[in-house]
């Protein structure tokens, strides 16, 4: 039994033929449409021909073993991979029918629409106020101090942080606890009012209580934003997402409603991963 499994994973590894993703890759009201996305780091073929739709106002979780390319794929969605010189992306990623890898696509505009929260909380070494104010300020979203204050107030409120920090907005963001820092980063991301928020393992550096707060927050944010979350925790994926995508060695194996993926996976690899046989 064990041996046969290993053989199957190896065959996936060496197989460069186009493969078919199992499940429902398309949705009715897509926000982002990905068709045949390939990513290369120099010679290494990191993402193989990924086709998936990301629906409006849904939380979609990307799961899979380490090094399967889920974070790489996430970073394609707001072109954060641009900063890596050796990274090449091919295929189409469309927002509002425009390819974001188009030559005349403005990266600044794209990232204002597709925000990001990183694995490790990374507040700027500035005050809490300045952390949240940076985005609205560089994009010119506030005409005066009062408007800016209002944006910061609502962003912190949405991130569930306002009550805790309202008396110390001028204190450094780095002095907060890990969970508060991550919520500050979420507030910073939603201060520019994006359409999509990408979250790259947002809870991996946090304790269970802080994780629970963030998960609840993600659920609330879904009303206004589309959220793509990469996570190592299958329980987290099951708790927060409506759809789940399973990646394995750079390939998108299966996509489907979260409930179905976790209760009735169609692909063997997904099933093995879900049931904890590897990963």
């Amino acid at each position: 039994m064990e041996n046969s499994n290993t053989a199957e994973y190896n065959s996936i590894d060496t197989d460069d033929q186009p493969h078919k993703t199992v499940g429902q890759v398309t949705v009715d009201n897509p926000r982002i449409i990905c068709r045949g996305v390939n990513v290369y780091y120099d010679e290494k073929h990191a993402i193989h021909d990924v086709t998936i739709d990301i629906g409006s106002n849904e939380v979609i979780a990307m799961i899979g073993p380490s090094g399967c390319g889920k974070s790489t794929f996430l970073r394609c969605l707001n072109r954060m991979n641009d900063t890596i010189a050796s990274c090449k992306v091919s295929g189409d990623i469309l927002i509002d029918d425009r390819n974001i890898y188009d030559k005349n696509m403005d990266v600044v505009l794209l990232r204002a629409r597709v925000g990001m929260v990183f694995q490790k909380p990374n507040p700027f070494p500035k005050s809490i106020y300045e952390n949240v104010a940076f985005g609205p300020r560089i994009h010119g979203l506030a005409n005066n101090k009062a408007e800016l204050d209002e944006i910061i107030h609502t962003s912190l409120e949405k991130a569930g942080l306002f009550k805790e920090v309202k008396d110390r907005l001028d204190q450094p963001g780095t002095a907060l606890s890990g969970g508060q820092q991550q919520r500050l980063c979420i507030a910073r991301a939603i201060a520019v009012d994006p359409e999509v928020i990408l979250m790259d393992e947002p809870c991996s550096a946090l304790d269970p209580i802080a994780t629970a707060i963030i998960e609840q927050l993600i659920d609330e944010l879904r009303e206004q934003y589309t959220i793509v979350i990469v996570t190592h925790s299958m329980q987290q994926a099951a708790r927060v997402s409506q759809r789940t995508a399973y990646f394995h060695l750079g390939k998108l194996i299966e996509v489907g409603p979260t409930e179905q993926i976790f209760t009735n996976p169609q692909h063997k690899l997904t099933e093995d991963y879900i049931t904890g046989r590897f990963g």
Partner: protein
Amino acid sequence: MSQSAPNAPNNSTASRVQAGLKKRYAQERRFRFYGVLAITLSLLFLSFLFFNISSKGYTAFQQTFIQIDVHFDENKIDPDGTRDSETLSSANYGGLIKSSLRSIFPDVKKRKDKKKLYKLLSPGATFQLREMVMNNPDLIGTTARIWVPADDDYDMLMKGHIDRTLPENERRLKDQDIAWFDHLIESNAVEKRFNLTFFTAGDSREPELAGIWGALVGSLLTLFITLIICFPLGVATAVYLEEFAPQNRWTDLIEVNINNLAAVPSIIFGLLGLAIFINVFHLPRSAPILGGLVLALMTLPTIIIASRTALKSVPPSIRQASLGIGASKMQTVMFHVLPLAMPGMLTGTIIGMAQALGETAPLLMIGMVAFIVDIPAGVTDPATVLPVQIFLWADSPERAFVEKTSAAIMVLLAFLIAMNSLAIFLRKRFEKRW
């Protein structure tokens, strides 16, 4: 698997570890001892250096003065009574000094002896009188008791640097000279005073009139030019290379060249300055602007390398956070990366500046070794700098320049220490933790 007690059989891990422990600790103790030894030795050398310099140099901060009564004779200064400034400035003040010395020692009759007598006082006394009269013409006709600087030989005698026990023909001051001076001491007309001249005057052939101020101003002007060229250029280069430039063969080539330039002997930069700045661009020779340019060339690689290191130490997560919100590359650099890298950049710059402050060789090539009496008033005036001034004084034959040299070294060291302290202060002040 049995539990290993401290005194377990030979083959257990614990006993093997225990057998080697003694040796391990001995090694550690030896290593620590070498460290302490190295620090002690370097502190010893350093304190020897400081002691040597300050014990030789501290006397330069005092100067021997002699009190004389001067009669400002109207017939000698301004016989026509016009009080015209030209007449006042060209009057024979030396004559006044001479006559007051003659009145102290009325026994000196021979022409040769009188000439030696006049050498008791520094030529600076004449200038001092002229200045007094120019500032206050009402002095004419009165008699004033004033302190004027003694000649450097008598200053040395006063400070004990001339051995009275030596045979007369081996001394600079003869028995008669010493007798005159002792007579002045007995009549309480000799005093050691704080040497203000040293801090306010430029260079001079006469040690008692020589000061460090000219060289200090020259150094400051030169460093100013170096700073305003080096800092913006260095920081901009580092930011471009580190944050914006593509990684290709050209940037590799530039990087290798910058690292090489940091190791080029400084005199080569002096030659370059001579060949390019003087011969091609005809910049004024010996001027701070020229020295500043040459030192800027020399300091630039240091600043670029320090700034790039500072930029590299800014965590990438900060850049990603900023880019992730949709900041442009330049906004990311200006708002987040540069402020975080600034303490490191400032430290690098100040250390580069301190290096430039102590640099002599390239300045010799571009004529800043000249003997310059006037205090430079601008960056195009001829000037010299502190280390070159030290070199010049160390080269002078007069005994009195020995203490001036040491004193100048003390001033230079004080400046270096101040600059390095500033670097540490800035680093501590602006350092941000995350």
